[in-house]
């Protein structure tokens, strides 16, 4: 269990960071060709370094890690924070996903952003994002993680509002930033609380290794402190990972370019919350209450977001709600103590959701920005590669065996059931059915059937260039085989993924590991149930949208209120507007108009007015005429003498 020092790890975030600097320079000089090489190149270089680092990590004994101390960052008596990077099993998975999928998305961006005049700026942001995300997962302590945490939030804001000339895009960026700030404030508070507890327990440190080691002692000293810190950290995670109650920014974030949606708002950044909870697994398992909250938030979000996705018309919005829902699964996974299942779903989701987003981007590319699935139809003929890869992604997310999400989603659901959360399991199962339904609805509407396109648009439909289709194909392959590293226990080579990650995670007490109870008939039954639910949902989607049918309209006529509720997205935005934003704006306006403008400015200006008024009237005394002064002196002398004489 020793950490082996190395200086390799610092290169990993440094390469994209240098890329960002060069691309920024290129943006100011408009050197498009430089950005086109450096942007994807720096991520590819980082990917190669990651491969080298992971290869070195695999040679270490199980349970060890690579560690890279760059310098002592914070040195305030008891608080010592090194800028240190650490590579263990969990980090290696994240690194491979971020740089691997990230590189594919960079490559795709070359084609997607080809005509954009701001391409160098785009790559500068994208590289900066990659660097921040790499810092986030490489961090050896919470403060260093927070650097990346804030960095990805900033880049998300910059990239959502990338086409800032349209107010709606800039507003969406701001909304994402503010919602993230709410979570980040809670995250900071949780970090402070944790440090407070750690210092009281005699180990003033925020390094993950120390926190995870001290977690049982912390819980023994004060359980409420651990629960409080975990809940605050969870609030931070709900902001970053778009969970209830802070998920509202993610659907709007689709205003950004589609590669951004794929990279940041599907594959990497939004999973930061899941990663953080998994990273602090030893702390979270010490607070069953907090774990219960985590699992509940995950399951409810998974179901809730899936219902909204049922009626969306905008292809990217469908995918956005689907992302929220799928992250709900990951949160559910880590919440029920199946950390490796949550991370496994994180990885497979990165593959198939990036694929779906990039395919959606390819559709947008072909249709000149059209996103309404009711104005598509029959695209399979025109976009053979895009439609086939989209179908693979759809099958994967629907949980069709043997594609990736079948194994990962099933593992999460199985863990939820086995660890004693039947209600949450049922929510997850229902969400799985809904997911299969809405994804196939989108697929049938967009790619199958007859064209509903504008004839002008249809005339120009074309398959995307190869630098866009190659990433699609690679991701499609990954979406198929990506799940095979984590097969069910006892089947072929079993859950290699879980075994690989096991040394990192805490084990939920009493069970002796996630899969100790596996092996009976229950997991198999659960699996069959999940698959049959998905199959039923796919059949229903085909009935309603795959074949010409009046069923959707009949349904809407029969349940108008339910449809209105879902179309209105449960009016959560409106509720937040009424409950939070308006009172906040009113309070701010009160402080602006009354407290600041009237009271404070009144006092400040009043002092000035009185003084200048006094000066204005006093100025008349200063005539500059010596004789007047002499008269005043004489008068004063006479009055003084008179007063002295009178009161002598």
């Amino acid at each position, binding site marked *: 269990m020793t950490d082996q020092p190395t200086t390799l790890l610092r290169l990993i975030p440094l390469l994209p960071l240098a890329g960002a600097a060069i691309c920024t320079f290129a943006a100011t000089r408009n050197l498009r060709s430089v950005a086109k090489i450096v942007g994807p190149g720096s991520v590819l270089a980082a990917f190669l370094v990651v491969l080298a680092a992971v290869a070195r990590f695999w040679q270490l004994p199980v349970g060890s890690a690579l560690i890279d101390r760059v310098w002592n960052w914070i040195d305030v008596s008891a608080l010592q924070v090194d800028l240190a990077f650490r590579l263990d099993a969990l980090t290696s998975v994240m690194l491979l996903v971020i740089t691997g999928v990230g590189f594919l998305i960079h490559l795709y961006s070359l084609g997607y952003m080809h005509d954009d005049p701001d391409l160098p700026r785009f790559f500068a942001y994208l590289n900066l994002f990659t660097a921040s995300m790499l810092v986030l997962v490489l961090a050896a302590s919470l403060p260093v993680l927070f650097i990346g945490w804030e960095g990805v939030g900033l880049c998300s804001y910059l990239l959502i509002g990338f086409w800032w000339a349209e107010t709606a895009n800039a507003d969406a960026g701001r909304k994402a930033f503010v919602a993230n700030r709410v979570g980040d404030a809670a995250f900071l508070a949780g970090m402070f609380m944790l440090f407070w507890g750690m210092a009281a327990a005699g180990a003033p440190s925020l390094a993950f290794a120390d926190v995870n080691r001290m977690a049982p002692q912390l819980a023994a000293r004060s359980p409420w402190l651990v629960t409080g810190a975990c809940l605050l950290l969870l609030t931070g995670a709900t902001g970053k990972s778009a969970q209830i109650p802070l998920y509202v920014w993610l659907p709007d974030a689709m205003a950004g370019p589609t590669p951004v949606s794929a990279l940041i708002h599907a594959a990497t950044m939004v999973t930061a919350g899941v990663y953080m909870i998994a990273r602090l697994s030893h702390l979270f398992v010490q607070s069953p209450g907090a774990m219960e909250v985590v699992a509940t938030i995950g399951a409810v979000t998974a179901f809730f977001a899936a219902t909204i996705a049922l009626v969306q018309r905008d292809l990217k919005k469908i995918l956005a709600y689907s992302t929220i829902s799928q992250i709900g699964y990951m949160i559910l996974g880590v919440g029920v103590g199946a950390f490796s299942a949550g991370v496994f779903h994180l990885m497979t989701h990165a593959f198939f959701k990036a694929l779906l987003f990039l395919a959606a981007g390819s559709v947008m590319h072909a249709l000149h920005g059209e996103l309404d699935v009711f104005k598509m139809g029959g695209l399979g003929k025109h976009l053979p590669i895009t439609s086939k890869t989209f179908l693979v992604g759809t099958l994967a997310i629907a949980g069709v065996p043997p594609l990736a999400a079948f194994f990962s989603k099933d593992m999460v659901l199985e863990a939820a059931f086995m660890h004693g959360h039947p209600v949450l399991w049922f929510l997850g199962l229902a969400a799985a059915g809904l997911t299969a339904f809405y994804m196939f609805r989108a697929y049938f509407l967009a790619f199958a059937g007859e064209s509903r396109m504008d004839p002008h648009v249809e005339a120009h439909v074309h398959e995307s260039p190869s630098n866009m289709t190659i990433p699609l194909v690679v991701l499609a392959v990954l979406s198929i085989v990506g799940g095979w590293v984590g097969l069910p226990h006892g089947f072929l080579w079993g859950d290699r993924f879980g075994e690989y990650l096991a040394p990192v995670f805490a084990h939920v007490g009493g069970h002796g590991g996630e899969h100790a109870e596996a092996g009976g008939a229950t997991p198999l039954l659960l699996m069959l149930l999940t698959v049959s639910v998905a199959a039923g949902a796919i059949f229903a989607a085909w009935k309603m949208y795959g074949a010409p049918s009046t069923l959707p309209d009949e349904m809407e006529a029969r349940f108008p209120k339910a449809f209105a509720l879902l179309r209105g997205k449960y009016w959560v935005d409106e509720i937040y507007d009424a409950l939070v934003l308006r009172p906040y704006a009113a309070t701010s306006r009160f402080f602006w108009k009354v407290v600041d403008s009237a009271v404070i400015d009144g006092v400040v200006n009043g002092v000035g007015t009185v003084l200048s008024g006094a000066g204005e009237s006093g100025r008349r005394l200063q*005539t500059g*005429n*010596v004789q007047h002064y*002499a008269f005043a002196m004489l008068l004063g002398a006479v009055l003084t003498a008179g007063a002295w004489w009178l009161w002598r």
Partner: protein
Amino acid sequence: MAVPVGHWLALSAALFSIGAVGVLLRRNLIVVLMAIEIMLNAVNLAFVALSRHLHSMDGQVIVFFVMTVAAAEAAVGLAIILAVFAQRRTLNADEFGRLRG
């Protein structure tokens, strides 16, 4: 027959008041300078009168000081007035309200 000291002081006060009024009201710088001389001499008169009344020589000594200072002051004052007159061709005090070069 000796004149009582009160009379001298009254005369001194009257002279001082005449001088003060002259300083305050007249505009011609030379007249103002002359009025200042009257005030100085009114004070000298009071000193001398009180010196005699109190049988002390201190007052008379101060008077000599005042006379020398007054002579110097008159010389300097007249010189300034001449310089000002050469510049402005007037001796009206109101014309010199501003000392800006």
